[in-house]
């Protein structure tokens, strides 16, 4: 009996591992996830007040130093916002005059599906389950964000739930650019836990500490990006380069706090991405 269960588990692992996500076993799994969803939502709701209380007291520990840092940041951002507003108005006007045809832009060309995280996969990988799925218009590769920035993308979906692979997962990679200098690279998982780096930025490009990194959108016909351009990812905390390495070593601090994710927004595009001939 026990041996049969072990063999059955091994067969399930083999099929589940080899089968595409549209296969019948994944279909059964999706149905199971749909059944479990109300219970997960209920448990999450019961736990939320306790988690909030814990979060409140945990936040108090660093509140003074954080307040000082945020005040300085607000002043800096206020100046940037004034300049940005003028540039935005000018950009809109120029686009109108040029009758500029653009690919779907964030956030205007996307419908937001706001949803809650109802499950965390395990401590091994960085994936979460959200309480919205195909019925809400979410499909595989749907980008997921918070008000702070990019979170990840949907990698598996059922009718009422979806699995989101976070940006900090080892399998994630996003085409990105330095908003200040325009240098392009690929944001992916770094060496430490939940750390991110910008890879493949050649040494001739200029990147400085504090620069904001945003999604680059699609830059190659061969490798279209899942993410619309200009979603904030993080800011540069260190830049280094060696004589032997062909690329700069850039570490970034993500804007999103992946350790305390609670609610996220899935972005459903309103217009189709243009396809290259």
């Amino acid at each position, binding site marked *: *009996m*026990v041996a049969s*269960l*072990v063999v*059955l*588990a*091994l*067969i*399930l*692992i*083999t*099929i*589940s*591992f080899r089968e595409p996500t549209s296969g019948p*076993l994944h279909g059964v*799994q*999706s149905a*199971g*996830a749909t059944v*479990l969803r109300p*219970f*997960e*939502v*209920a*448990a*999450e709701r019961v*736990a939320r007040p306790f*988690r909030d209380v814990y979060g409140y007291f945990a936040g108090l520990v660093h509140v003074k130093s954080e307040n000082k840092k945020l005040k300085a940041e607000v002043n800096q951002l206020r100046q940037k916002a004034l300049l940005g507003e003028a540039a935005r108005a000018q950009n809109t006007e120029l686009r109108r005059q040029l009758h500029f045809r653009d690919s779907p832009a964030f956030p205007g060309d996307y419908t937001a599906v706001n949803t809650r995280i*109802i*499950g*965390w*996969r*395990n*401590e*091994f*990988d960085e*994936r979460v*389950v959200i309480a919205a799925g195909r019925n809400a218009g979410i499909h595989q590769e749907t980008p997921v964000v918070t008000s702070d920035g990019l979170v990840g993308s949907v990698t*598996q979906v*059922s009718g009422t*739930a979806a*699995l989101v692979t976070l940006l900090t*997962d*080892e*399998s994630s990679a996003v085409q990105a650019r330095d908003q200040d200098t325009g240098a392009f690279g690929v944001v992916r998982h770094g060496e430490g*836990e939940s750390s991110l780096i910008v890879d493949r930025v050649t040494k001739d490009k200029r990147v400085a500490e504090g620069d904001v990194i945003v999604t680059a959108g699609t830059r190659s016909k061969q490798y279209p990006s899942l993410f619309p351009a200009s979603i904030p990812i993080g800011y540069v905390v260190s830049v280094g380069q060696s004589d032997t390495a062909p690329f700069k070593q850039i570490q970034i601090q993500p804007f999103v706090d992946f*350790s305390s994710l609670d609610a996220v927004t899935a972005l459903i595009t309103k217009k189709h991405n243009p396809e290259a001939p």
Partner: protein
Amino acid sequence: MAADIAKAGMLLFLSVVIQLSILAQVSILGGHPNLLLVTLVCVALLRGALFGAVAGFSAGLLADTGVFGTLGFTALLLTLAGYWTGRYGETTGRDRAHAPAVSIAVITVLYQIAALILRYMLGQNAPGGAIFEALVPTVLLNLILIFPVYALTRRLLRPREWVTREVQLLG
């Protein structure tokens, strides 16, 4: 027997839901409490190897389903955990007060290592360093959990030895 299955099923279902929705994101001193494993160990200790293996398989399958995991992954690990704990409960661990604590400590270590190896074999992310760093706090957290969970499970599933003694007295 049917009542036992229903009670154990309910208990394991609740622990799967709580584990996936709440505890999977809890990290204390780097450790991650595993309520599902703790509950399974309690059930297997009280009901034996076969019951433990079937309970582990079912609960594992449910857990894999709930988080879109590789189907059968947790089921395989929990089947073995349930079987081993059940055997221990039926033999050496019978009537030993420290049996739950010993079982969960050993099973937690074996579970983490087995999960790591399995993930490595499947080509998935297997951060050995992080897992071994978190091993001691995880064992401690599971040790803390086992006492209340075992007490609750014991109330729901009366140990079989008690039933035997009562029958003997009556007889």
